[in-house]
């Protein structure tokens, strides 16, 4: 089932990688410019009409963001994850809000939390979750939340940190 769709897609697009997670979940990697077209095709031709989620993964070491669109076909009960690698610098992506109105919400969140731009997406620049945030978008991996929290907020003294494995061993099984 999924193989047919993938071979169909391979005819039209350059699939960079195909990872079979299980019999009904497969992840594809498509380049930035063709990804939304492929999603369009998946939606209208192959019946992947339920949009599950859109999120980004920060691969700081490679200088890339990975956008993941997970689509679900409720009839065949299969999922396809479309992965797109985009540059971390000047991150932007083709908007997919014309396919599902609800995608605009995900794109608003990604814009705010990762700083990924989706030109043309409605209300993209309205504050969504954060208020008055300045500096690095918080979900980027180079934003150190602990250092930020320690310097920005008033802390109560006396907090200690333990390594869970050794601490648990000391407390619970001191003789082992």
């Amino acid at each position: 089932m999924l193989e047919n769709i993938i071979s169909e897609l391979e005819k039209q697009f350059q699939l960079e990688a195909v990872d079979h997670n299980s019999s009904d979940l497969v992840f594809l990697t498509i380049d930035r410019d063709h990804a939304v077209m492929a999603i369009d095709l998946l939606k209208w031709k192959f019946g992947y009409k339920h949009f599950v989620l859109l999120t980004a993964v920060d691969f700081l070491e490679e200088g890339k963001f990975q956008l993941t669109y997970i689509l679900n076909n409720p009839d065949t009960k299969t999922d396809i994850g479309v992965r797109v690698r985009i540059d971390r610098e000047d991150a932007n992506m083709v908007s997919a809000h014309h396919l599902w109105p609800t995608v605009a919400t995900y794109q608003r969140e990604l814009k705010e939390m990762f700083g990924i731009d989706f030109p043309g997406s409605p209300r993209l620049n309205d504050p969504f979750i954060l208020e008055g945030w300045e500096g690095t978008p918080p979900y980027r991996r180079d934003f150190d939340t602990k250092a930020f929290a320690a310097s920005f907020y008033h802390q109560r003294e006396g907090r200690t940190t333990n390594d869970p494995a050794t601490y648990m061993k000391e407390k619970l099984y001191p003789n082992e």
Partner: protein
Amino acid sequence: MSKKEFFPMDGDRTKYPEIKSDGTADIDLSSHKYIKLWHGPNHPGITGNMAVELTLCGDEVVEGITHVGYLHRGFEKLMERRKYIQNFPLVCRIAVPEPDYNEYNYATCIENLTGIDVPEKGMWLRTLTLEMARLQGFLMWIGGMAGAIGFGTVGQWANYCRDLVLDRFEELTGGRIYHIYILPGGVRNDIPEGFKDRMEKNLREIEGFMKDIRRAFFDNYVFKKRSVGVGYIDPAWVFDYGIVGPNARAAGFKHDIRKNYPYAKYAELDFEITTAKDSDIYTRAFLRFEELLKDIDLIRQILDKMPEKGDHISKVSNMMNLKIPAGETYVRSECTRGEYGYYLVADGSEYPRRVNVRGPSYTHGVALLEKMLVNVNIADVAQLMVSLHTYPPEIER
């Protein structure tokens, strides 16, 4: 003078507000025809800590904008800097009314990527907790629904029933709200002795209350008058707006993850997908009520079919510093609000690269709610929100 001219606001209300060419509503605030009103965050008629910015024309909402983020703690960021096992206390706090779904999804993500097996009894116990979580979630929801239209009596009864379920949760897991019961490889504790009898006693009491609630609430003239025909969900919106769960089933979309994508032990249980037609507030409420009754039945089935003996958790070596090979997976389950999904990306280290939570409220509470708020009476905003069963922490995490 015709009736239409005499009552210009009568007739087809969907024409107001007029839509401009760019798709936004034509609302001129300086014309003094409109009132801006914040429904929340400090408002008893709001589901959790979120806000809806309403523009009113008379008693009618012409535009609603959802504001979320009041509960944002940055879970997905915090999870990236904790080890896999350390994340279990975090994940359950994403959705407070039903924390077990978070634990289940997250644990299953880890199991999928590492190949940890779950023993038979562990699976049954997981199914039990998930179903109990659904039951108490629906009970709380009925309380909220009744409260949203000023029916405190039913709200009290429903919360009384919920406390009975929480008692059993406490017995099974040790926690009232947060359980941290489901771990990779199974569940934390075995089932206590005599649990089944006590559960049965509670279920019987709840069923008795449900009979009363059905008579007092769902057969209530005023409630029907208030809710029939209000807050209609067009079946055509189901995919556009990512509607899942009872909201979609009430619109006629036969989709239940427990049945369509059987997880845990649902394949061995006997139940049917509840569907309805013409999703208005009453239909959705009644559908949830029917699901609640089915949950009671399912809990009985689970307790009957659960094996007496067996391990509840498999041995996992080096759980504290669990390393997961690079890979990604998506796991879904059916909570009271619909599809609850976890997307986990592992990069081979002891820390997850990314965990993304797909809360069902994410689509219900923002895009869909904003659409449905238009042309709704201001008095119906609260019950509309409750009937969608939005829960803000899922939206912002």
